[in-house]
Structures are given as C-alpha cells and as structure tokens.
C-alpha cells in the first residue's frame, strides 16, 4: 500500500506543480507542509468537500512538519479503511446535528411567522399603533404624554415628585397656576430652573420620531416669531408703541386697528410729500381746529409716537437746521390732527 502510494506520488507531484502556484508552495513550506501533504489535502478536498474541514483540522492538530517516509506511512495508515469509517461516523453525527439544527431553524421561522401574524393582528386591532415593533405603543403613548398639553412630552422635565411634563408646559403651569406639581400638587422648588430629563427625552425621540419632528417644526416657527419680536424691542420708542398697541387692542378690534394704522401712514406720507415739496407753505393748515374725540385719543397717541420716531429718523438722516425742524414738527402736528378729522368724518358718514 505504501508502495502504491509511492508510485502515485510523482504523478501527484507533477499535478501539484500545475495545481499550486510557487508562492503558495513556499508559504506551505514555511508552515511546515510538504507538497505531498498539500496534494493529499487538496485531493481529499476535491473528493469529499464535507470532510475537508475535519481532515484539515486533524492534520493541523496532529502533524508536525513531515520529512521522512515514516510520515508518509503514517499518513497512508490514516487513510486506511479502518480510519475512514470513524470519520464517516463523525460526519454522520454532524449531519444529524445539522439536520436537527435545520429543523430547529424551520421551527424558529414558523414561530417567527406566528409572532409576526400576531403582531399584525394586534396592529389591526390598534389602529393608531405607529411603530409595529411594539404592540404596547398606545400604552407608551399614554405614559409618555404630557398631562398639560396631552401630547407626547416635548423636552420633558421631571419634577422633584417624579412627574414629567413638557418643559414649556411645566413652566407655564408654574407661572400661571403656582409652583405646585399639576399632578400631585406637591410644591415644586422653582419652576424656572426646570431641566430636561435627557434619558426620557431620548427615549421619546426614539419611540415617536414623527411627533417630535412635528413639534420641533412648530417650535421653530414660534422661535422665529420670538426672534422678530426681540428684534423690534431694542428700538427706542417701541416699548411705548407696544403699550399703545396693547391699549388700542383692548378698545378696538385688531382689524380696525390695522386699518387705522394704514390710514394714518397714508396720510403721513401724503403730508410729508407736500411738506417737502412746498417747503413750509403748509403752515396755514397748522392746527386746523382739532377737537380730539375721546374715542380717538388712543389712536392719536399712537400717531404722535410714530411721528416722534419719524422725527428721530428725519433728524439723523438729513440733519436739517433747527428752523426747518420746528417747521416740520408743526406740519406733522397738523397732519395728525387732519388724520383724526378725516377719520372722524368718515365714521360720522
């Protein structure tokens, strides 16, 4: 048997030269494998692909670099019919194990399918379920919603007593309803210093991304409004104007308000055009008997304030002499009184 093997070797070796690249061979030599070993291994691989792993492993485990014939013999011995059945037995065991695992897999897949079906059923029953991964979404939604706005908590803040609300809602509640927890009425130390509960906030963002996005978009709009609001405030007379506008809003409807403002502006502009054109000839029109109606007092005040602001701008931009300044002032006064008169007449008709 060993001889036969020996006879075969040259052929195999020749084949091997074709089969393996010199580089591979050198690497194999470095690892302590001679060509024959490689060839045998490769043959085994070709014949029975399932066995190769076992074979290789056994080779790696039990082989020291082969150099003598005795090695060859041993190898031949290992390939003898006695040893093969053992391997086959091993493989059988493995195969059965594989089959079992496959069966298990099938069972698992079936189970998964069942679970999915159940999920689908539960989804059908709960229409508002947004995330199919969690069938308890509605309960979560309830748990994670703010008791004040009844929506999903946005930037939740947790009170010392353990209740969570939107930061904004909690703040407004503390401002308007006293510093007590809206849920349990326990004292909140300071509604101003409420901090976002980051863990809760992150959880909410993960669970309800759509709702959070919607709220963020709404919040961005609000903040833009707030910004424009704060941009207006710094101007010198704007605080006064705000007060006036508030007073006016109390008395009149905002629509009327806007109309009034528009009318006043138009009149102002017309008068200014005339003033600039004629340069002082309008003085005759000054104080054309203006019995300010009590209803229009607020509007008149607003007009005066606007006028003052305009005067400020006028002074800055053109830097005219004191004489023409007084003139312009007078004209403006006349303008305002005219505006009131016209409006009064318009209302009477």
């Amino acid at each position, binding site marked *: 048997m060993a001889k036969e093997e020996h006879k075969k070797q040259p052929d195999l070796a020749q084949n091997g030269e074709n089969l393996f690249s010199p580089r591979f061979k050198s690497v194999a030599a470095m690892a302590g494998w001679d060509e024959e070993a490689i060839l045998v291994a490769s043959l085994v691989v070709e014949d029975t692909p399932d066995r190769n792993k076992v074979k290789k492993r056994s080779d790696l485990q039990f082989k020291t670099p082969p150099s003598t014939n005795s090695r060859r013999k041993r190898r031949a011995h290992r390939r003898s019919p006695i040893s093969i059945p053992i391997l086959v037995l091993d493989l059988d065991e493995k195969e059965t194990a594989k089959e079992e695992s496959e069966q298990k897999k099938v069972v698992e897949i079936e189970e998964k399918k069942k679970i999915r079906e159940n999920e689908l059923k539960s989804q059908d029953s709960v229409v508002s379920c947004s995330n199919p991964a969690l069938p308890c979404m509605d309960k979560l939604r309830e748990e994670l919603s703010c008791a004040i706005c009844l929506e999903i908590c946005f930037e939740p803040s947790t009170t010392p007593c353990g209740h969570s609300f939107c930061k904004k809602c909690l703040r407004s509640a503390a401002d308007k309803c006293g510093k007590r927890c809206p849920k349990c009425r326990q004292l909140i130390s300071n509604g101003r210093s409420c901090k976002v509960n980051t863990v809760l906030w992150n959880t909410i963002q993960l669970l309800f991304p759509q709702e959070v996005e919607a709220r963020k978009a709404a919040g961005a709009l609000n903040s833009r409004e707030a910004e424009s609001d704060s941009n207006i405030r710094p101007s010198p007379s704007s605080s006064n104007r705000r007060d006036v*506008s*508030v007073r006016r809003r109390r008395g009149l409807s905002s629509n009327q308000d806007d109309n009034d403002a528009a009318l006043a502006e138009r009149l102002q502009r017309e008068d200014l055009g005339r003033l600039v054109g004629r340069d002082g000839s309008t003085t005759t029109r000054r104080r054309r008997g203006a019995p300010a109606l009590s209803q229009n007092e607020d509007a008149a005040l607003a007009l005066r304030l606007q006028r003052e602001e305009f005067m400020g*701008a*006028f002074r800055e931009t053109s830097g005219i002499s004191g004489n023409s300044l007084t003139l312009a002032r007078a004209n403006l006064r006349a303008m305002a009184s005219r505006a009131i008169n016209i409006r009064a007449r318009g209302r009477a008709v």
Partner: protein
Amino acid sequence: MNMNHSSHTGIGTARTSSSLAIATSSATTSSWVSSSGKRIQREMMELNTDPPPDCSAGPKGDNLYHWISTFIGPPGTPYEDGIFFLDIIFPSEYPFEPPKVVFKTRIFNCNVDSSGNVHLGILKDGWSPALTITKVLLAIKSIFTNPDPYNALVPGIAHLYLADRTKHDDLAAEWTLRFAK
C-alpha cells in the same frame, strides 16, 4: 430730492416696525389660542372614544371653546331621570385656567346657586392644568350623588340637607320633575 428720499425711508421703517409689533402680538395670542384649542380637541376625541357614563359633552356649535353638556340624574338620587344641561366655557388660557361650568337647568342642590353657578374646588383654587374635562364631569356627577353641605353655595339647602334629609330629597325630586323632565 434727498430729503424726500430720507423721509420715505423714515416712514418706511416706522411702518414696518409698527405693523410687525401688531403682527407679533396677535401671533403670540393666536399661538396660545391654538395650543389651548389643540388640547380641547384632544379632550374631545378622548371623550368620544371613552365617554363617562350618564353624561355627555361637546362643542355647542363651531366654537371649540363653548361646550354644552348633558347629565342624566343618577338612579337612587332625587335627581333620578332628570336631564340637566350645563354650559362649559373654556378660557383662552385653558388649561392653565379652569373652565367655567354653569347649570342651565335649575336644580335643587346646595352646591349650585339659583343662577346655575357650581361650587367645586377643582373649578376654582383646586384647579390643576393636569385635570381634564372628563374629570370635571365626574366631579359634577358627584354633586348629584353626594352634595357637599360644608362647602355649600346655598346655605339654606345645605341646612335642610343636614337637618331633614327626607324633606330635602322630596324638594329636590319635585324640582327635578318640574325643571328637568
């Protein structure tokens, strides 16, 4: 020409800033309205999906802030089978201010005065923004079953309730028959 130009710009800035001031103030108020409106809408949906027994509530017309509510006198009380109408008016600051609840149907109860005002702790100092209209309805329901003579709005009825319960109940039943059926 130069003066003309400058004057125009001056007015222009004045106009834009003033109109902006008006716009922002109205916007802030409207945003508040919408947030309270949102909450009221949510409460309405909640009420529709899970209505409390023996009572109903909903907007009167198009106005989301003006609701009408109906109570059926609970059995075992002198108000049995009576139908009581209530007006619920939500303030624009809701839920930071309590809703106003008024009985439109006359009722013989020490916690409801002749003009229909209801004396309930949670509708006054005891209000919390975490309370909902459902809870308010439940509290009103408790007035029917358990009037509170110690925090009465009508002392006479409270005295009668404590001194002569049967007479009180007879009178209440008579009122129910007269006004609520």
